[in-house]
């Protein structure tokens, strides 16, 4: 599972008032586990707690308007649905991998090569998150995989990501009991998909060497939330002044433990290693403890 999952369970902490008014350390910070490590000698509770900046005024406190405490996570609904998806997949012994990338990094091409190689050994279903068209799905037919399209085109030119309810609506269209692996092609977008857990067991990001070495620093959330980064289009390296080691160094800065695989979906280089990684995820997802995080 990605490391970037919600810990924002309201993790109640009191404001870290710089002047430390009355000093009573009655603040609670329920960041699991580390509460025990916190030693009250620090006094001001600055310890584990991010400083907060209040934007805007506090006039509301003076007007006596009625205030309702809420403390509800905005992704709660999505995450509950994601948990339901994960449970259904687990129930059928299916491993799901969420493929994310910027537009055109090579998700569909890699999927095609993957289906070609896994045909006859691993039973694969694909959920295609193409915004408006079935173009990508059409490229994936003919390898015996079950393909279903998620229509993300609702309003404002289509969604920029898949969310858990969209994947939930797609699951019944796949014969889960006859599948081993579900590959989810997310919408091509370097920002939004990373925010939405869809119930996958692992996240893989496809990064193309045409994108520039600094991308992990500029778009850290997706790089950080991925279990694996596929470095694609390495066949183009001789034609680019791309510094692969600099890219890896930047990637490690935001995600020190991530695995990478160098691939060319065009020539087939590295695709077997990618398939082996998928195989390891499949094996891992069948051990009950593996999917818990």
């Amino acid at each position, binding site marked *: 599972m990605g490391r970037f999952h919600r810990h924002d369970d309201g993790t109640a902490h009191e404001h870290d008032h710089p002047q430390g008014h009355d000093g009573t350390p009655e603040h609670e910070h329920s960041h699991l586990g580390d509460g025990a490590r916190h030693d009250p000698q620090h006094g001001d509770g600055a310890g584990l707690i991010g400083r907060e900046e209040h934007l805007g005024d506090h006039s509301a406190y003076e007007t006596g308007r009625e205030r309702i405490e809420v403390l509800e996570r905005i992704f709660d609904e999505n995450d509950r649905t994601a948990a339901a998806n994960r449970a259904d997949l687990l129930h059928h012994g299916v491993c799901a991998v969420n493929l994310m990338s910027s537009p055109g990094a090579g998700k569909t091409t890699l999927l095609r090569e993957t289906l070609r190689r896994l045909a006859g050994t691993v039973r694969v279903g694909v959920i295609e998150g193409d915004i408006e068209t079935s173009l990508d799905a059409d490229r994936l037919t003919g390898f015996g995989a079950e393909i279903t399209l998620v229509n993300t085109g609702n309003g404002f030119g289509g969604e920029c990501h898949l969310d858990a309810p969209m994947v939930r609506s797609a699951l019944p269209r796949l014969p889960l009991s006859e599948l081993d692996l579900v590959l989810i092609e997310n919408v091509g977008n370097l920002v939004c998909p990373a925010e*939405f857990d869809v119930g996958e067991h692992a996240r893989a990001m496809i990064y193309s060497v045409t994108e520039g070495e600094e991308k992990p620093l500029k778009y850290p959330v997706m790089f950080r939330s991925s279990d694996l980064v596929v470095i694609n289009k390495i066949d183009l390296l001789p034609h680019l002044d791309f510094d692969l080691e600099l890219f890896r160094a930047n990637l490690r800065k935001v995600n020190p433990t991530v695995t990478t695989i160098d691939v060319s979906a065009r020539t087939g280089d590295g695709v077997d290693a990618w398939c082996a990684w998928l195989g390891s995820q499949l094996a891992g997802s069948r051990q009950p403890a593996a999917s818990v995080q």
Partner: protein
Amino acid sequence: MHELSICGSIAEIVTRRANGRPVDTIHVRVGQLRQVVPDTLVYCWTVVSADTALDGSRLELENIKARIKCRTCDGLSDLGDYPIMLCGTCDSADVEVVAGEEFLITALELAEV
């Protein structure tokens, strides 16, 4: 533009909590590691709330800086503009995020009727 669908989730929570009472201000806590563009979120809220019971309410955002804690030396570091996951004290990469991933509605203020 996932801000739009996020505003849909906010509307759902606020509608349920307000339970028919008019809402003036919605307090939202956003960690630095969230990819939420504040201006976009505020703008999308006007779009999503228009012509609903929440029309005229506004979002007030409270930003939380990102912080990491080192598992090697227990040191705490603030993250700068780039979320580089290295301990500011001992350079260890064995760190955990302790603040900055928040994204929640903390409170509502009701409008005076």
